[in-house]
């Protein structure tokens, strides 16, 4: 009696597989196109970061740190940390990881900000999107790898696809909140002077929501970084893959170096993007 009756089974797995199959067959061209676009953007960023020599890149990051975070000591720390990555022999892999992060953030913002704006302008859409976003954020990150693998096979593109999906909720959410919390009187003032709803959006709502949107960008970027590392499980080359290899070969020291490099990237990206949200 302790066995659940075999005759009662809901074949959800079969249904989902069926849907996926249908999607794969019927939307093949569509997924090919998306894969093509993502790949090209990755390659462009990769070429860019690998083209810039380290002795220019490091001072450049130092300058950004000084300019945006606002302290010389921070700029110097950033530069020393990057030198450390170089000394581990992970410069090239770091640049690859960075280009993956930047590509996924690029797409996340491209898709996420307009969705946040739409969500802010419609209560109905908000009530539909909110539970979806909540669900997305509680889902374990590697779950996204499975459909990504099915659509795109192994490699960078599925890793990117999964990363974009995983990292997009914060920017949507915070764009929505930022726009919704703009002072109603300010919007009324703009309307009273004859502004159209487009003018209100671009001249009032988005500028005033900017700090909030920037916090969203910061969070999205951090999530993208963590997912890019996980994405190495399906073949995205970068620091994450080094950690994975080190685990397989039980090379604790190597894994540690790669891990530290990831943490360094995370700190630098976080500090710089976070500083944007503080600017007027």
């Amino acid at each position: 009696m302790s066995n659940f009756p075999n005759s009662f089974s809901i074949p959800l797995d079969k249904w989902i597989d069926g849907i996926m199959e249908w999607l794969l067959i019927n939307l093949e061209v569509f997924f090919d196109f998306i894969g093509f676009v993502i790949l090209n953007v990755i390659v462009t960023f990769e070429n860019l970061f690998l083209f810039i020599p380290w002795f220019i890149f490091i001072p450049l990051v130092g300058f950004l740190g000084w300019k945006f975070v606002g302290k010389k000591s921070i700029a110097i720390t950033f530069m020393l940390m990057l030198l450390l990555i170089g000394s581990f022999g992970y410069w090239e892999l770091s640049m690859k990881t960075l280009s993956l992060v930047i590509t996924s953030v690029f797409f996340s913002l491209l898709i996420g900000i307009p969705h946040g704006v739409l969500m802010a302008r419609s209560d109905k859409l908000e009530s539909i999107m909110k539970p979806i976003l909540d669900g997305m954020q509680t889902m374990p990150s590697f779950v996204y790898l499975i459909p990504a693998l099915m659509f795109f096979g192994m490699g960078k593109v599925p890793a990117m696809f999964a990363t974009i999906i995983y990292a997009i909720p914060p920017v949507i959410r915070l764009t929505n909140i930022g726009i919704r919390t703009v002072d109603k009187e300010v919007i009324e003032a703009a309307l009273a002077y004859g502004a159209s709803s487009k003018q209100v959006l671009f001249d009032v709502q988005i500028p005033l929501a900017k700090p909030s949107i920037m916090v969203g960008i910061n969070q999205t970027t951090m999530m993208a970084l963590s997912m890019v590392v996980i994405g190495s499980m399906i073949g995205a080359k970068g620091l994450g893959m080094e950690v994975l290899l080190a685990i397989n070969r039980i090379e604790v020291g190597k894994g540690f170096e790669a891990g530290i490099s990831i943490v360094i990237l995370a700190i630098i990206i976080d500090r710089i993007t976070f500083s944007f949200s503080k600017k007027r």
Partner: protein
Amino acid sequence: MEEKQIVIKELWKIFGKDPKRVLKNDNLGLTKTELKEKTGCVVGLKNINLEINKGEFYILMGLSGSGKSTLLRNIIRLVKPTSGDIVINNKNITKMTNDEILEFRKDTFGMVFQHYGLLPHLTVIDNVAFGLKIKGLSKEERYSKALEVIKTVGLSGWEYNYPGNLSGGMQQRVGIARALANDPDILLMDEPFSGLDPLIKREMQDELVELQDRLKKTIIFVTHDLHEALKLGDRIAILKDGEIVQIGKPEEIVTNPEDSYVKEFVKDASPAKVLTAGCVMEQPDVLIYSWEGPRTALTMLRSSNRKIAFVVNKHKEFLGVVNESALLKIIDNEPSATNIPKEIIKPRAFVHLDTLLEDMFHIMAKEPLPIAVIDENNKFKGKITTDILFENIIPLGGHNE
């Protein structure tokens, strides 16, 4: 006939689902609370009818939630009326499409908000030029006009500061400058000075009055502060639960409150700040015409048992006062005099018809004698005595119960 700038007819605003269904005959008589219970809808405005003249300083007054802001927002159609007509500059704005409304707002209105409604990410000059930018003017045109109005409101030198660095009073000056920059026909002001401290508030009120004298805009001004209303308004409309309960000149409102709600409002109005000489003056028992001669004057004085009286000339212009003994002396010395000679007419203080009682205290304090009231052409209109003055400064609530 004064030119009408705004005519509002049978305006209703109901907030809630499907508001038109609420406007059925059997609902129209219900109070706000009854209607809320029956239909779930909130009455914003209930059958508003009013006319505002060009150049008028019109006050909307009432307790919080009485519908003042809603009425103001209907006029610029930030809130869409449920039914009724609003005609502005002979155009019915309730019939306009959205695009027409946008254009109409740009040309017609300037609006000032309680919390200023400024854009924190723009400098003072860009805030002031905001309406002009929306109108599509070039940066040069915008800035030259903006600089001009910034000067008008006394903010020169602050053009490139951000609103966040300015005091409340200064921020509201930016708000007013922004409204003036468009050169609108109508200024809408929603409790613009409520958030300011009393001294700044008074200063801004004085400046607004001055500005109005100069620019002759039509102003619709929302306030819940009676003294502000009385000080600024040409006319005051009092709202209660979305209905107008009384419309009148300031002195009509305080002297003749129509119901208990208005009475409650004007209870602690200080009449000295509202009533003018013209409202309270009395006619003198004797008025002496200088050309009638000393003998007639003397007879008139004696017949009314007076020792002294006001004198006017042929045009009824106020000259001063004469007393009995001076008249007697003249009659003795120059029995043939046909006119009262200037030398015996003594000067006497006078005030104008629109002088507030408040401003007469210091005159009366110096010399507690009856004073003359004259109009803008120096014509004698009446007199005010210390008795009259004191009778009229008892708080208004006092003699209504």
